């Protein structure tokens, strides 16, 4: 019996008068990897930002761990510990060292012991090959290194779900691979549940159990990963895939 982590039902989102998400419904089971694909402006970022309360939605239902979450949920700070998010622009805190970036959540939000949290942070840094950079400030890191720290910062809170919004889009091509390897390992080794927005079609094809194809704020199709890339159901998705391959 698969355990449902997140479910949304008929979610609608407006910016002012402008509707950007229409009746979005899907669910995600523990350990599943969902890739959110679609053209620019289709609402991918908006959708995953709704899932951890960075954007509010106007109607629809959101369930996390079986519990309903209202859009203005006061408990978002609590919930966000369980929903890690990594952004395209890394967004490390420039005033804190790498280690302090990672420890902020565990120490201040989760009130964990410094020694224990530090030990774990260092282990995570080692896992992404940055154990030597704990005391360094973000500006001294390359883009790829920053993004690895950002992933570690999210993992340090022991999330049950990870959201990735185009985390390789700002990176030099030779940095991309390392980040994608880390994400794949998270899925394969830790069985992490993930929603990934990406333009890396090969990566999505390899890692995603399921593809959500979004256009103009609507889910046009939800298709198992391999199948989507071999024969997508909708004409629009096929055109999109065509446009993405060179």
């Amino acid at each position, binding site marked *: 019996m698969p355990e449902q982590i997140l479910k949304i039902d008929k979610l609608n989102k407006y910016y002012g008068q402008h509707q950007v998400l229409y009746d979005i419904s899907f669910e995600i089971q523990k350990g599943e990897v969902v890739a959110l694909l679609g053209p620019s402006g289709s609402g991918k970022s908006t959708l995953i930002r709704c899932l951890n309360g*960075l954007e509010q939605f106007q109607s629809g239902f959101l369930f996390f761990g079986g519990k309903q979450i209202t859009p203005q949920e006061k408990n*978002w*700070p*609590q919930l966000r510990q369980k929903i890690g998010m990594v*952004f395209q622009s890394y967004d490390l805190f420039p005033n804190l060292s790498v280690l302090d970036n990672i420890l902020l959540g565990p120490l*201040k*939000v989760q009130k964990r012991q410094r020694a224990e949290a530090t030990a774990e942070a260092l282990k995570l840094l080692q896992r992404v090959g940055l154990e030597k950079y704990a005391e360094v400030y973000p*500006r001294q890191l390359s883009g790829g290194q920053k993004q690895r720290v950002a992933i570690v910062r999210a993992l340090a809170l022991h999330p049950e779900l990870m959201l990735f919004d185009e985390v390789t889009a700002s990176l030099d091509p030779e940095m991309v691979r390392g980040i994608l390897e880390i994400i794949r390992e998270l899925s394969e080794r830790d069985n992490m549940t993930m929603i990934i927005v990406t333009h890396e079609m090969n990566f999505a094809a390899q890692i995603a159990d399921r593809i959500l194809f979004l256009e103009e704020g609507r889910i046009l199709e939800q298709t198992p990963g391999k199948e989507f890339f071999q024969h997508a159901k909708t004409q629009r998705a096929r055109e999109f895939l065509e446009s993405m391959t060179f």
Partner: protein
Amino acid sequence: MDLSIMQQAIPQFVKAFELTLWLSFVGILGALLVGVCCSLLQYFKVPFLGKVASVYVELFRNTPLLIQLFFLYYAFPVIGIKLPAQVCGIIGLAFLGGSYMAEGFTGGFNGVSQSQLDAGKAIGLNKFQLARYVVFPQGFTLSVPALAANVIFLIKETSIFSVIAIPELTNTALDLVGLYYRSNEYLFMLVLAYAIILIPLSIILTILERKVRYGSFGN
């Protein structure tokens, strides 16, 4: 210019110089305190008090120090509050400066990017933690140039204290001019005295600005 006239006036200028420094120092300290408090009230949108702070900031930023001093020194005694001139000066400077400093801090806090706020929220920081660990440290750094400009501005504003007869630099110089009818010498000394305060200070502040900028930013 007559050097001996200038020499004779040195003790008086030194006294005035010290007084100007002292009043500026206390007034600016007060201004920073008032400014921080107001901008915190505004940042957290504290009911009622946040609004009061906003009205105060607008009101004081848009009235001349001269008028504020007249109020404190000449109008307040009418309602039974009589304060020594120097106290009026410090209060005036603190509240005029407070409104500018509040704007400076608020500008810095607002300058922290949305993506930094998102990143902070995403790791579960609540409103106060976000302020404490993300917005204030970064926003303060961003506000340093404005605060530094305010410090210079406020020191220059102390010259207005002369109208309520505080013997600071400007008042002293004008007194001497009136007494001895030698304006060139005394005005030259006046300019020199301000330059001695302001030029090194502005160099120090520029260095400080650069320090904090490179200290925390520049991805």
